């Protein structure tokens, strides 16, 4: 891929909880290139959302301690001044949130919510900002965008609202778009439209995209690279082909095994990964996946966290890495 847009290094997030400090993100490192789509997958509670909220300083400062670095075009998001961070939110990084039902302000019109975002980043007249807002709504495929400006969120369906949320995120032509489960709440046809929309904008503007999801179908469809998160760590990353075709980590294999296969003839039960993810307040001493791992082939599994290491040959320019003690090529 082309030049690096975002470089996250050793990102750690610790949250204060009633049950003690929780290590929600434990040393996450990845990069996103211009025009590249990185999918972040993992179960609920694996630290996906927290890791991106931390990038934009959107975690409550009283509760969260964020360390590491996240350079957007060379500038560290985690240490910049609040005013500079405000300037970056919008034109630098646009963010689409998970739940379209709650991520818009119910008492302000759609137009207002778009216009205020546009006007926060430059001297734009109200009329011009409204014009641009209508253009954005048309771009995300909202029918009758001009009338939609004067509507309130509750007057729109979930799919329409999510388009509005996307329009807000795109309002300042961000160089990086972060979509946190942006299509999870939508039905499949709407989801497909939105994926197309983002892909279109991406090829047009060269936007880098971080797409957080637990839908592996979406991953296969849009991602260039995949990052699998578990227990606040990256347990496997690589090109979409490497990770989906030749998964190296037992957890990734479990995830893929849990996909229903419509083509397969056996009508047996869906495979599941038994157990639940570890509580971030109480992580296991060894491999984070050890308590649920069906393999446990190495004595170090229970005692030592495996590093992210290159596994096997990769067909792309990117290394395929996994954090596991499992031997390469062990049976699936």
């Amino acid at each position, binding site marked *: 891929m082309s030049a690096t847009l975002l470089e996250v290094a050793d990102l750690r997030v610790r949250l204060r909880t009633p049950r003690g400090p929780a290590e929600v993100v434990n040393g996450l490192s990845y990069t996103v290139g211009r025009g590249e789509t990185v999918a972040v997958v993992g179960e609920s509670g694996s630290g996906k959302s927290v890791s991106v*909220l931390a990038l*934009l300083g*959107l975690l409550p400062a009283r509760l969260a301690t964020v360390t590491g670095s996240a350079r957007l075009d060379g500038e560290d998001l985690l240490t910049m001044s*609040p005013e500079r961070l*405000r*300037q*970056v*939110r*919008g*034109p630098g*990084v*646009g*963010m689409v*949130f998970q*739940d379209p039902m*709650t*991520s*818009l*302000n*119910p*008492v*302000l*019109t759609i137009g207002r*919510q778009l216009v*205020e*975002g546009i006007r*926060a*980043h430059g001297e734009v007249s109200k009329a011009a900002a409204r014009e641009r807002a209508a253009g954005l709504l048309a771009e995300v495929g909202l029918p009758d965008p001009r009338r939609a400006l004067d509507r*309130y969120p*509750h007057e729109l369906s979930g799919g329409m609202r999510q388009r509005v*949320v996307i329009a*807000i*995120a795109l*309002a*300042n032509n961000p160089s990086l778009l972060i979509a946190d489960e942006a299509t999870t709440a939508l039905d499949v046809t709407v989801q497909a439209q939105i994926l197309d929309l983002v892909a279109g904008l991406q090829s047009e503007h060269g936007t880098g995209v971080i797409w957080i999801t637990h839908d592996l179908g979406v991953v296969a469809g849009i991602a260039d690279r995949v990052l699998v998160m578990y227990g606040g760590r990256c347990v496997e990353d690589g090109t979409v082909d490497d990770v989906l075709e030749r998964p190296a980590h037992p957890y990734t294999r479990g995830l893929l095994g849990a996909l229903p296969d419509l083509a397969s003839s056996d009508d047996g039960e869906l495979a599941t990964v038994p157990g639940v993810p570890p509580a971030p307040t109480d992580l296991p001493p060894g491999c984070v996946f050890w308590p649920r791992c069906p393999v446990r082939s190495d004595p170090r599994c229970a005692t030592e966290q495996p590093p992210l290491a290159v596994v096997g040959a990769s067909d792309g320019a990117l290394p395929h890495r996994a954090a596991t003690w499992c031997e390469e090529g062990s049976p699936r």
Partner: protein
Amino acid sequence: MGVSVIVFGLVQLVPGDPIRLALGTRFDQETYDALLARSGLDQPLVTQYFSWAGRALTGDLGVSFRSGETVTSLIAERLPATLTLAFASILVALLIAVPLGTLSALRPRSVVDRVATVLSQIGISVPEFWMAIVLILVFAGTLGWLPSGGYVPLTEDPAGWAQRLLMPAVVTGVVSGSVITRFVRSSVLEALGADHVRTAQAKGLPGRQVFTWHVLRNALLPLVTVTGVQLAYLLSGVVVVEIVFAWPGLGQLALQAVQSRDYPVLQGAILLFAVVFLLINLVVDLLYTAIDPRIRR
């Protein structure tokens, strides 16, 4: 309708015979009977109710047993004083509650928050008459800054009006303000945690704009409701304060009416309180449609 039946019924439950009270200790049976017939109290209760309710519908609430003035004119005379006090109190209440509640919500469990919690707890628990007496002792007695009570219309003496209004408004305002502070704190806290606030931040809006339009604006909705409830309470429930400060309002009128078994005045006053309550609720509902687009169609 339902309200009027309850008002009428409750008043009938007040013990004591108004005619006897009006006549004093020495009277003959003939005068008593004549008065009874003239006041209509010899009729069956149902008849009394319908004749009262019928006249009330046309705005005629009857004539005071005691002074012979019409109830409507008595009420009209007292209404401005009570309205003044109620609105001044709610103003004091909001001036206390909105900043204090907001500050507490912005820094939960901070010193400010704890102090605000303790203060509002004190404000809710301290009896109004006690606070009123302490204020009178300090500001009218020891310091001599303010008159201890009474009322002059605004048009006659604006300075005197303000001076006399200050203490009663502060007493009732502090009580209502304490209640409202709690509500402001919780609704601002709730609004702060809403998902759309994060969306607003992610847009890169300046902090103040996020706070005004995405936190306060949304926290306003529950505030309107409590303020309405408190205002209704103030309009009808300031009896104690009106008496301590010799404020010639409806509360005082109602109390005097109870003491002299002046049924028409008492019924009129209570009916008015009920109507005011309904009216305020109506206004709150209308305000809601103005500020919450989800309610209007």
